[in-house]
């Protein structure tokens, strides 16, 4: 009896809040979409139209001029476009993401399934690397890179991102593999598999959710990185798109329409990834990869 009345009243209790829930969600959605709206309409205005005090007004004409200028550059106005650096970013982000994901997977596997004395301490030491402020290590970084001949090249930038991606990727994979029951590993050991065999036959096939989370996270942070991009690859021909975008700003006078258009263009790949793969990102999180 009590159960029936409880469910009925709790159902009733959930009726009117449904509307409130949708309302709240829409309000929040507006908050999240406001910046994109501004980016879009400013990108579609001409330089003469761009005006701080009319920023919410729709452009007179929906033109993709600024986008084209941002992409191809303009000799007349003396700036380089984003197109060249776009490919640099792709060349940088794709290998770096894959490499750091593989590395993190290996590390996470070893540190979660093949514990030895001190492996927890090692993990902590590894993890601490995530917390250093990168501005402070630029000078020694450049000198070390120069000694190993990687300074100023994209492989050098890939190397830097892989190294500094080790802590976070290891963390994610270790926590993910920790949810895999040890019995599976034990059973495989009894069957005679060695450490690499277990990885290949058991861990790797079920790692996909972990890989998705790590690769999305790493791709985003590598694609959006500015500091390493501007310091490690100092020549314009090899710089990633974030640096080129920053240069669109100019030192004294800013063409806002072009900069905002350029910002949207630069953010497109990562946005597309989040929209297309957001579902798998969620699934990966659900699979336990990002528990504290």
């Amino acid at each position, binding site marked *: 009896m009590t*159960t029936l009345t*409880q*469910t009925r009243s*709790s159902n009733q209790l959930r009726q009117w809040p449904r509307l409130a*829930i949708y309302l709240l*969600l829409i309000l*929040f*959605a507006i*908050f999240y*979409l406001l*910046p994109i709206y*501004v*980016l879009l309409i400013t990108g579609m205005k001409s330089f003469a139209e761009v005006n*701080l*005090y009319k920023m*919410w007004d729709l452009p007179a004409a929906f033109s993709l001029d600024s986008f084209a200028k941002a992409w191809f550059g303009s000799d007349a106005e003396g700036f380089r476009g984003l197109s060249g650096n776009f490919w640099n970013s792709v060349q940088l982000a794709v290998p770096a993401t894959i490499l750091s994901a593989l590395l993190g997977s290996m590390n996470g*596997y*070893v540190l979660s399934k093949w514990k*030895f*004395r001190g492996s927890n301490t*090692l*993990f*902590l*030491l*590894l*993890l*601490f690397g995530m*917390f*250093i*402020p990168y501005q*402070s290590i630029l*000078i*020694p970084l450049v000198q*070390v890179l120069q000694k190993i001949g990687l300074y100023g090249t994209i492989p050098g930038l890939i190397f830097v991102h892989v*190294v*500094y991606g*080790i802590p976070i990727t290891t963390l994610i994979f270790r926590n993910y593999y920790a949810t895999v029951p040890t019995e599976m590993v*034990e059973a495989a*050991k*009894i069957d*005679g598999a*060695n*450490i*690499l*065999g277990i990885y290949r036959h058991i861990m790797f096939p079920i790692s996909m959710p972990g890989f998705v989370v790590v690769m999305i996270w790493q791709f985003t942070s590598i694609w*959006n990185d*500015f*500091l390493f991009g501007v310091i490690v690859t100092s020549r314009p021909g090899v710089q990633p798109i974030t640096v080129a975008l920053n240069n669109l700003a100019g030192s004294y006078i800013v063409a806002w329409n072009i*900069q905002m258009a350029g*910002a949207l263009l*630069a*953010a497109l790949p*990562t*946005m597309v*990834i989040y929209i297309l793969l*957001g579902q798998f*990102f969620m699934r990966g*999180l659900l699979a336990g990869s*990002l528990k*504290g």
Partner: protein
Amino acid sequence: MPGCLALQKPEIAMADPSASLSSTLVRSTYVAPKRRSRFLTSDRIIAFLLIAPSLLAIAIFVYGFIAFTGFASFTKWNSLIPDFTLVGISNFQKLLDTTRFQIDLRNTVTFTILFLILCLSLGLILAVLLDQRIRGEAIFRNIFLFPLAVSYIVTGVVWRWLLNPGSAELGATGVNLLFDKIGLGFLKNGWYTDPNIGIKAVVLAATWQMSGYVMAMYLAGLRGISDDLREAARVDGANEFQVYRHIILPLLQPITLGAVIILGHMSLKIFDLVVSMTGSGPGFSSDVPAFYMFDTTFRGNNFAQGAGIAVILLVMVAVLIVPYLIYSTRTEAET
């Protein structure tokens, strides 16, 4: 004593595989290890070799550099030619005496606290809302998630516009203008041009960017809590709020902790967003240590001072993060 036993357990577990390996013939391509030296099974060696590159890389590129920075912070190095004369802790004394750095520290604390509170609450609220089995969940989820895709620089530029208050003379702009248009004019204020607000305006932009991530974590966590648990609580007479307060929120605690760590360390290191959104702000009201470090190192060539700021930042991070890390791995070892 119990701790010692806990550490012993994995060792005992390891003993068996080597015993079974020595008794299998086919799969093992290496010599069966003797019982005495079971610490050094080939698996162990391979395991170590697998993580060795990472350990080496971190040793050099993290700890080596930290050591270098730490050393530099005790020197007089303030030009392109390194000057490694030791000056004790005077750099630190000078720093803590500098108005700009004092403001920076205050800003960091303000930013971290506000950012954490806002992000966690917003993320939780959004996750709870999305968990209500609503229509169009995927669309809303994407909307909340995609700011993560945008770089800090872009976020900074857009929010610089959005939170530009305009002026009494030329009219309002940004969200102030919006407030005027929809009749909420009383909400207008100076945002980052107001020295009393300063860094708090940056908190808004940072929350916009990162709360989607918190939402995703909480949503995954909520989905992981089985309905049976909630039903059981309801059967016992709890209303919705009590279910959340006593069952769900405690179960989400590990996620909260994880989010605090990731958000916390981001807020301590925040740089790109501040640079592109507000710069140092009036009276350095939105200046942060990372920006001061960059500025003083490369514009002023005060490498020693920059290193000092880095050391202080690291200490702050260590004080906050290390206890948590030790605690979490220890609790894991006990389970």
